[in-house]
């Protein structure tokens, strides 16, 4: 909701600026009235969509519009930084995490707190109104000079947005800038420390060394996966050796190995299956270990764990 509030505030600022008689160009007006609804729709869409990735995309739309607003309002460097840093890097990292979470993680529509939604809407609108009204009141009678008067234009005395930002950032606010930088470094190093696995220096073996070590053992290849040569996909179904016996090396840790029902015996002509459709489709024909969902295939062994 805070994005929404920001948007409303931006709208109010725009209106306030228009009142005080600063000339706003046609292009700027058109851009504003095209992109302001987009930014608002993005903010609303972010709150209202169920799918987390869709939410992130709506937020991207809002951030992009804000970046264009900055550019239009004579702060091109800020706009580019907004697009490159926020939209280009931070939101991509968000998406990265959301995509790893999986695509079927839509929000549940069940309200866990009673009346939370109504309260949130009311409070959000109230907050937006408060902030908007506050900003509008505060800037009501201020003379609006525009950024150009402060930072100059290209060829002018202060040479424009980039130079003006540089002068302010590395001149007047250099201490704040340095402190912020230090804070970010501390955060990054802290995250590294928290996630870093403690290891003796020199104990980590390189990929080459591990590969060599593996080829010196009896088994250079990977262990057989459970169920690879078996008739079920379950982790409990061990891989089979060529003679049909379960391969001990494929037993999963912590799971009791379960043997799958057998193929029909050698010499079977399939008479025991006469007239029986494959009730569970291919899965039933392939056999299961539990016999619960698809049911055992009649005549091909018990189907239950042995």
């Amino acid at each position, binding site marked *: 909701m805070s994005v929404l509030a920001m948007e409303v505030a931006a709208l109010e600022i725009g209106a306030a600026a228009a009142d005080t008689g600063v000339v706003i160009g046609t292009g700027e007006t058109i851009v504003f009235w095209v992109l302001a609804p987009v930014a608002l729709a993005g903010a609303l869409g972010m709150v209202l969509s169920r799918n987390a990735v869709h939410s992130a995309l709506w937020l991207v739309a809002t951030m992009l519009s804000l970046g264009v607003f900055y550019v239009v309002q004579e702060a091109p460097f800020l706009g580019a930084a907004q697009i490159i840093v926020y939209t*280009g890097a931070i939101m*991509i990292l968000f998406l*990265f995490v959301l995509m790893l979470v999986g695509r079927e993680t839509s929000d549940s529509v069940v309200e866990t707190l009673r009346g939370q939604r109504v309260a949130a809407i009311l409070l959000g609108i109230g907050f937006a109104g408060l902030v908007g009204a506050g900003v509008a009141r505060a800037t009501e009678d201020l003379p609006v000079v525009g950024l150009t008067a402060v930072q100059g234009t290209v*060829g002018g005395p202060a040479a424009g947005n980039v130079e003006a930002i540089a002068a302010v950032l590395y001149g007047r606010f250099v201490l704040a800038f340095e402190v912020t930088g230090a804070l970010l470094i501390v955060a990054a190093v802290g995250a590294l420390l928290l996630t870093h696995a403690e290891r003796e220096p020199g104990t980590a073996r390189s990929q080459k060394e591990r590969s060599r070590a593996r080829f010196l053992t009896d088994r250079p290849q990977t262990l057989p996966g459970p169920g690879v040569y078996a008739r079920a996909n379950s982790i409990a179904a061990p891989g089979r050796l060529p003679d*049909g016996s379960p391969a001990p090396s494929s037993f999963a840790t912590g799971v009791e190995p379960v043997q799958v029902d057998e193929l029909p015996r050698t010499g079977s*002509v399939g008479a025991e299956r006469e007239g029986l459709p494959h009730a569970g489709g291919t899965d039933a024909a392939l056999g299961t270990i539990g016999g619960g969902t698809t049911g055992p295939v009649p005549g091909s062994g018990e189907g239950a764990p042995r």
Partner: protein
Amino acid sequence: MTVFAAADQPTLEDFGNDVWWIVLIKIVGIFGVLVLMTLFAIVFERKVVARMQQRIGPNRVGPRGYLQSLADGLKLAFKEDIMPALADKPVYFLAPVIATVPAFLAFSVIPLGPTVSIFGERTPLQLVDSPIGVLIVLAASAMGVYGIVLGGWASGSTYPLLGSLRSAAQMISYEIAMGLSIVAVFLYAGSMSTSEIVAAQADGTELSFFGLEFTGPSWFAVLLPVSFVIYVIAVVGETNRAPFDLPEAESELVGGFHTEYSSLKFALFFLAEYINIVTVSALAATLFLGGWRAPWPISIWDGANTGWWPLLWFFAKVVVALFFFVWLRGTLPRLRYDQFMRFGWKVLVPVGLVWILVVATLRAVARESDLDAGQVAVFVGVPIALVLLGGLLLASRMRNRDTRVAAREAAAGGPAPAEPQVLDPRDRDRASGGFPVPPMDLVVPPSPRLRRREAVGAGTVVGTGRRSSSTTPEETDDV
């Protein structure tokens, strides 16, 4: 470095005053140039790679096969458009568009030439410029990542998802290296506007070297060699090109992020990829190779940098850069993913940071001691770079010493066999050295579903393609 305000050199004030139809002509022109460059780049790449692999390459459609990519593009447009059942439909539809639009946008700030006259109007050969020109290219490439990431995610399939995850990580990492490499150029040019960066490379510094007067190099590729190398490596990663084409590694991920895409949507991804290559090539020419200005021997001619001629020099530089891309693809094997990320973060980024420090120090020293920045770069920067390169060369020779010694011994008649050893493929005893072949008498175990129908069928060998109910030795002692 002072900006030489030559008559034809556009400055920032020259932009934004065009008549609407000039703007329209420029927009359509850039669109056309990009599409044509894409068609050209595809044929060019296929032909060059073919030559490198001792083939001829496309040679059927059009004169000498040069219309092949046009024919392919038309065919692609008429193919069936498939929407996967598990796709997230709006995002799946949007992703190719998101990939393509920024690709076109980025080219709008590339200066193609000096101020020329179009139907009587004096206008620079560049759509727009702004004090933050190059950042627009960076922003557009940052937006382009979304197309690839979302395309992979929305396909609802594993390989595209893996491809898009890889590309997200890769493009963010290499964008950092790319941005760092450009910072030194900003420092030297004193501007982020593309046209002013070209202007800053207009004239080399007048140098006197032991009494010998000559004009020093003006291209940033020479003055800032480390930046140039980092930029070239980073953009190869940024555009997902071989050897960094991990998001669409055919041998690992089928097609990567565009596995599920077909028809026009796939064409858009393809278009975006090649436009990105053209754009980064054009940006390399602009930032490091003097932009549209003629290279040295031609620049002696006074008319080389006026009128429409610079268009020719510019596109020559772009094609050279494209050739370099193709050369890389034809030469280098694909990196393993972890090696690739380690290279980006542990080599490119630190080197870029240190280099910026060095450049900034040089600039400060130059300003304090009233030296021209170009002089400092040529007399301090270039020797340092040469020493660095020499050191790297020595280090690599030291590392490969064993291999070289072994190769020399082998060439001098060492233990290497004179004739290639031919192994009997039918020797199934692997211990004796024959290479493994599938057993020739392999029999497929019976399918329970087919058994009823072929109950009396005799056992047959695999080669016939028929399933049989013959018994295999393994089955007889089944438990």
